[in-house]
Structures are given as C-alpha cells and as structure tokens.
C-alpha cells in the first residue's frame, strides 16, 4: 500500500479539474477504488468505472430504450412501484420477462491483463468551478499518521489534533482508512473508529 501512487492520484485529479476535463483515468488498486467510491459518495465524482486504456462510452452515446418503451415503463412504475426493486431470487430464474421490459445493460470491456486496467472517473463542475478543487495527502509515504476517534472528532469540529489541522474551510472532507474500509472522517466519528488518515478534499 504505497502512498506514492495516492499522491500521484491527488495531483492528477487537481490537474484534471484545473484543465476542466470531464473524464479522467487513474491506475487501479484496491485503495484507489475504495477512496474513489468514497469520493463519489461525498459527491465529488459523478462516476467511477473500471475499464481499459480506452475510456468507456459516455452515457449519452450508450444504446437506450426507445421513448415509447420509457413511457410504458414509467406508467408501469406509477401503477406498481414495487417493480423498481430487483425481483426476488426465486423469480430470477423464471423465463417470463420483467414487467418493466428488457433491461439495458452497458458492458464495459475490462482487459484480462490487470496492468492494462484503468479506473475512469467522471469529474464534476458547478457554476464554472470544479467541485473537487483541492486534494492533498495528510499521511505521507515517509510519515503515516494514525488518529483515534476522539482526535478525529476534534478535527471535524475545526480544532487541530495530532498535528493535523482541523476541517475549517466549508465543505472540506477527510478520508481515513480503517479496519471497516475507507471512510469519511465524520463517519468515523459517528462509528467511533480510528485509522490512518489519507487525504483531505475540498
């Protein structure tokens, strides 16, 4: 688990945001994937897709259902809203089709060779400003920092703890890798878990 690669990812995301890119890719690792999913959950990223060297097809270029079918689907959902949930396991194998019509699934080609895999991220912009502007490491490759939940609590309340500055700018987030996975600092405080702090994002 090298933090050098994570440092590269941080700088790359900042650069891509400054360049106003819509889609960018980073090397794949379990740490990267989990952190990116955390970022997506916090609303910094619009999409996280595993793919090859070529970018996945944008949503608008993917094959979609015809407008008539969409209308039918909407009517069905309005009358029987429970169809929005996936069917139970018993019915999954049954031959008769779903009441919503055939599901459109877009298959992304993922190379067999793990070295050729890339993680494709959709970046977000709002009011001509990137949503993800700053992203910096806290733990460095040469100096890891572990914090317990009390320290994290202080930090989320804008106080300094364990040589880590508080989250003072509005909407700032901090990601912590714990034994429950990679979590946001506030979630760690809620669950009372500590861990190694990775990066701060705003």
């Amino acid at each position, binding site marked *: 688990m090298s933090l050098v690669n994570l440092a590269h990812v941080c700088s790359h995301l900042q650069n891509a945001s400054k360049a106003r890119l819509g889609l960018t890719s980073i090397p794949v690792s379990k740490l990267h994937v989990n952190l990116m999913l955390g970022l997506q959950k*916090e*609303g910094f990223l619009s999409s996280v897709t595993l793919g090859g060297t070529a970018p996945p097809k944008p949503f608008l270029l993917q094959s979609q259902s015809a407008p008539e079918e969409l209308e039918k689907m909407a009517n069905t959902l309005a009358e029987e809203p429970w169809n929005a949930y996936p069917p139970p396991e018993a019915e999954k194998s049954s031959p008769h089709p779903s009441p919503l019509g055939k599901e459109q699934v877009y298959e992304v080609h993922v190379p067999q060779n793990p070295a050729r895999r890339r993680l494709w991220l959709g970046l*977000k912009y*709002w*009011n001509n400003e990137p*949503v993800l502007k700053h992203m910096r490491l806290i733990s460095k490759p040469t100096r890891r920092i572990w914090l317990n939940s009390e320290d994290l609590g202080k930090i989320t309340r804008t106080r300094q703890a364990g040589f880590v500055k508080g989250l*003072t*700018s*509005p*909407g700032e987030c901090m990601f912590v890798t714990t034994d429950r996975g990679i979590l946001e600092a506030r979630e760690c405080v809620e669950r009372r878990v500590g861990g190694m702090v990775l990066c701060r994002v705003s």
Partner: protein
Amino acid sequence: MSVWRPARCLFSRSTTLPKPSASTSASHQPRPFHSSCPRPARRRPHYPSIKASDLQLLNQAASESYPKYNTDETALLRKRYTPAQIAAIKAAEAAIDPRDLLTQGQQRTDPWRLPYEDDLADVDPVTDHADKLPPSAIVGKKDFRLANAVERDEAMSRIANENLAKMYPDGVPDGQLSRKDQEKLEENMEAAFTQAAMDPRAVYTGSNPRALEALADPRHSVILPDLPRIENRMARQTRRLADEEEEDPRQKRLLKYLDWDKDKLRSIRVKTLIVHGVTNQTRMGKIRSLYYLTIAGNGNGLLGVGEGKSVEPEEGRKQSVMAAIRNLRPVPRYENRTIYGDLEKKVAATKVQLFARPPGFGLRVQHLIFEMARAAGLQDLAARTPRSRNKMNVIKATWEALCSQKLPDEIARARGKKLVDVRKVYYGGSVH
C-alpha cells in the same frame, strides 16, 4: 514646390519662418543662418493704447448725459434751496467725475431692484409698508382681557362681515347664482371666517375700542414686514437652502448609475486607507501625482474598493471615493457577523488568510483588514498576512477573498448532498 519658382527664393529666405518685415517681398534679405526664429520688428505693447480721439469721445458723451446746470436750472434751485445748500450740491457734483459715472455707473439689473423709479424720499401708501406707530398713538386705556364665548362669537361675526365687505364692495350677491360663482362665494366666506377666527380682536376684548383696533393694525405690529418674495426663473435657480450642499457632477452621475438617492449615498461609510505620491518620469521631467485607495461599505454586507490618481489631491480622492462606491459588492456573512469558513487569497506576493471566529471574538486583525471588516459589517474575524504586507495588495486580496466566498448552499448543490447548519438546528433557528 514648383520648378518655375526662381532658385533665388530658395536661398534667400525660409518660407516657414516669419517675415522680418512686411516690405521685403521685392528686396529680399539674406537668409538667417541660425535656427531660432527672428524677433518681430515691432514689439507689441502690454496694454491697449488709447487714442486721444477716443478720450474726446468719452468726454463728449459724459457732458451730454450728465450736463452742467444751466442758468434756468440754477434759478430754480435758488428758489428752493439756501445758498449754503446750493454750495453743498455743487461741491458734491464736482466731486464725481461724469466720465466715471458713464463708465462705471450702471442701471441695476439684480432681482432686488425696485420695479419703479423712486428716490425713496417719502412713503407711498400704495407701494410701501406703512410707518410703524408708537404706543403713544393709541388714545385712552390700553388694557385687554380674554373674551368670553359670547363676546368672541359676536366679534368673529363682525370681523367676518368686514372681511366679506372688503371682498364684495357692492354687497354679497344673493338669489340664483351660477355654479362657479356659488363656489367662489363659499370659498370667500370660508376664508373670511378663518381670518376672523385667527384675528386677535376676536380673542381679546377691552373697554377701549381704539386699543382693540390697534391689535389687528400692522402699524402696531412688532414683527417686521416680510421681504418681497421674488418669483422668476433666475431667482429660483440661484436660491440655495442652508442644508443644500454643492452639487457634484460626478456624484450626480454616480447616483444615476447606481439608481440611488442622496440619503442612501449618505449612509455609505467611506474611508481613505492609502495615500502616497507617485511620479511619472517623462522627458520633460517628473510629474508628481497622488494615489488614493478608498474603501466603501454600508456596514451591512456591502464592500467596495476604489483607486484614484491625480495631480490634484482633492480630485484624486474624489475619484477613489466614487470608484469605491461604484465597486460595492455583496459580502456573504455567516449569522451577519463572520465569514463562512476560512478563506485564503493570494495577490502578487501578498497572502491573506481570514478565519471565521465564534460570537464575541471581535476583530482581531491588522488595521487595514479591520477597517474593511468594519465597513462590511463583520464582527468576529481573525486574519494573518504571512507573506508580503504591501498595503494595496492586502486590501485587494481581502476584498477578493471576502467577495468570493463559497456558500454552503452552493457546495450542497454542487455535490448533490444535503448540508445542514448544525448551530442553527441546535439553537432552534434563534441565531441569525
């Protein structure tokens, strides 16, 4: 240049330089061999020369418009005045040169001149206010008492009748009246009764009717008569009220630009924070001017910064003030007292860090940022300027930082998350 022009001209005199004299067209002078312009032959005097004939004209006009007394007139004067008085008149006339009267004396054109010819020697009963009368002019006792209701009503009706009689000298019209006349009559009657009610003769009564009459007589009033009110266009335009200040064309333009009135402009707090001299080095020398940087704010979330530069100090200051008011921008404030989170802005080598602080913390910042925070209406703030502290850049960086804050609502919209102000929830919305 034409080829037919003789070559002599080329060498004889330069055409661009002024001619040394007018009569050299035929007998050409040699060309001067230095580059400076030759001096004109005839030096012009510093004052216009007055010719003797003109002086004669003035004398003639003076004697025509202010002639000497002839024999008939002196005879008339002798009938009226004593020899001593005549001697005084002659001495007075001799003291004033009629030429001065002609050149300097002029008819009044000011609005306060009399509209009629008068030497103000005696009182004209039509045009002038009557002379004041002394209390001794009232014959008899001079005591009054407050009238009772009956006496007052009687006096009022009598005075109203007098007033109506003044308005209708031929008697009050009766019978069937046209609508217009009827309205006018009612109006006059109301005026007469109002005047009667306000008349002192209705309020007081006494044994001496002459003393009572004196109450309403303006000749016995201690109040000076009003000055005549002049109503023409010039008088209206030049009339100035005491509270009316001088109209600045730049301020007028600014008000038009902002669509504000003067009261709103007066509520803006303006402060000049930086003044220093600057020089422009030209080939003629240094041109010194003054640079001004002014901030403006309404103390309630508006802040502007303006710069001005001019050779004239007052001009530069005004420029900067107007620019500051024109540049007013909203400053988002958390709970109307501090900023939303920490801010950082870098302008050139200057970095300004602003920190939000809890209620009651105060403005613990350097003087420039203090003035800006006060103008914007911020009450709790801390700041650091870790790098260069150039005054102009500190102000600009602070202004930029305060005006370009990221609001929580915006962040929530951008991320698609729900953000809640915990303080507001905790205090049940009783914070701002």
